[in-house]
């Protein structure tokens, strides 16, 4: 090989790859507004994005899978969490979710919290080509989870309670709660925890809609 052949490889290699890349970039940028439902990208969402950046959230959390690996990925978090719960959590993280690995209290204003939740809700709707994938074990089981399980997740119950070995230690293990407690007892516990245990740190879930409450009670009662 001669020097000029080497130069030809350099020039053509660079040109071909650049042309492909710029062509696809043009196409991607024109398609991304639809894939990210940009019509719903309100000022609150943009402000929320700035709040997200301003507090450097991305160096602990990943989003779209990019960032620090120290805290949960937040791409689809709003499919898992109730907006009200998220707001309370952001107000005082450790109080709402007493995890061993802590998130510092950022002393966010209510406005910043509202914008952040708007931002995360918008991110939740981005078409990410199916990422993160549905856990294989869940997909393999084939059964559709009970609707109450989604409520259980959205309300962050596993911050304090264990289910099948997964979850916190603040409250009792709920793996077999359906075999020791009646549905009525569970419903009352959810609505007014201190009626059973005067010193219980558990918050009341009476704010749940009647349907969510029934689904949650059905789910917990099924755990035998």
């Amino acid at each position, binding site marked *: 090989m001669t020097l000029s052949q080497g130069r030809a490889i350099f020039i053509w290699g660079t040109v071909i790859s650049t042309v492909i890349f710029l062509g696809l970039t043009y196409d991607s940028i024109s398609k991304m507004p639809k894939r990210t439902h940009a019509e719903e990208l309100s000022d609150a969402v943009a402000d929320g994005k700035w709040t997200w950046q301003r507090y*450097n959230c991305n160096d602990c959390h990943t989003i779209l899978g990019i*960032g620090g690996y120290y805290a949960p990925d937040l791409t689809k978090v709003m499919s898992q969490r109730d907006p009200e719960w998220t707001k309370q959590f952001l107000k005082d993280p450790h109080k709402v979710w007493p995890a*061993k690995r802590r998130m510092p209290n950022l002393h966010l204003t209510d406005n910043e919290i509202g914008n952040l939740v708007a931002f995360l809700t918008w991110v939740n709707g981005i078409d990410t080509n199916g990422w993160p*994938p549905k856990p294989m074990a869940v997909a393999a089981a084939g059964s559709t989870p009970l609707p109450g399980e989604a409520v259980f997740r959205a309300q962050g119950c596993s911050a304090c309670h264990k289910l099948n070995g997964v979850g916190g230690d603040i409250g009792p293990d709920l793996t077999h709660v359906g075999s020791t407690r009646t549905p009525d007892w569970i419903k009352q516990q959810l609505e007014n925890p201190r009626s059973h245990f005067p010193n219980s740190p558990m918050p009341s879930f009476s704010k749940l809609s009647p349907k969510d409450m029934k689904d949650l009670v059905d789910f917990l009662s099924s755990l035998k």
Partner: protein
Amino acid sequence: MKYETQKIAYQYFVAATLLFGLQVIFGLLTGAKYVWDYDPLMNIIPFNTSRAIHINLLVVWLLIGFMGGTYYLVPEEAETDIYSPRLAAVQLYLFVAIGVAAIIGYLAGWSWGMPFLEQPTVLKFGIVIVALIFLFNIFMTMMKTKKWTVIQGVLLGGLVMLALLFLFGIFFVRNLSTQYYWWWWVIHLWVEGAWELVAGSIIAFILLKMTGVDRELVEKWLYVEVGLVLFTGIAGTGHHYYWIGTPGYWLWVGGIFSALEPVPILFMVFDTLRDVREKKIEIENKIPLYWAVGSAVMHFLGAGVWGFAHTLPQINKWTHGTQVTASHGHFAFFGAYVMINLTMIYFAVPRITGVVRKGHGRSLVALRFMVFSIFFMVLALAIAGIVQSYLQRILGMDYLTTQDYLKLWYAVMWVSGWGVVTGVFIYIFDFFSMGRPPKITA
């Protein structure tokens, strides 16, 4: 050293070396937060601040090292003195000042909040000014030359590409997906494009000088290497466009091009070894060569093998956003860029100071400490990442719950980190034992 103004490189190498030391200390601090749940520094230096400082220092010291390397290399290639040594000094002080301001800013909670590009916008404009001064100085120096070498051309191309791409990381974009689309133009096209050009021309220069092989041979293969790097690397950016709100065809384009990315790196390994084998002059100071060969091998393992392992979308779907990426990042940066910088420093500093040392044992001890420790560290992170992918993505376990199962591997990572730090501090000690440059004679 042939030209008086090459001495300016020494100051750059001092700054790079000191910041390298600081970078690994922040690495230990960041790593400790994975090992122990209770973080006494949570409200002073939380994880995000510590990580931002750790990765920013990495980028800054590598860039300062590249700049020093450029100031050393260009006079010899262009056969003329640096256009303005004073401007080169001003540029260094300005860059270091911006770096210090950024770190103090992070500690005070002042951040722009995109990973690696956390520098507030006003500081980014300062960085642009630094880049412009640098390019101006290098360009004016090269303009004085009577012959343009391929090494100079590739180096200048890489530096211009580096500066231009930075512009894509300055502006706030409302849409997170689009922001990340352009963000990768800085992050990916730097490390798998511009930086490869800079590093490739530096290593070509060193091998040329040390082994005495024909210039035409070195430059021919430099062309082929950077041609293949850019061919696979530019469209290979697509492996970052799988899951961020971009169209599905990137799964194909990114997969195919990035699967080819190890090819030019393997090529570099053979190229380096061939030059060493076919050397025409006796090599007296072998230390830079150990680092160069070490870099070629670690570059291939860290960027090539570790990168290939999770670059295909079928695998990346499960490993994306886990410690697998952290493992790859540490391995690739160390092999490709840390070791290249140290190769350059070990090549240039004795030539600048004129100090001839009898033994080189300490440098080899530093090399072994760093290489073995990094290897254990990335192995621990890779295992942590694979276990995490399994628990989180296969079993569907909650992220925070998975972390309890990774504690052992975080501990291995952290202990290995102490090995890396030990190696780095042996290197720092060794650096300062190579003497100081004689005073510039007026």
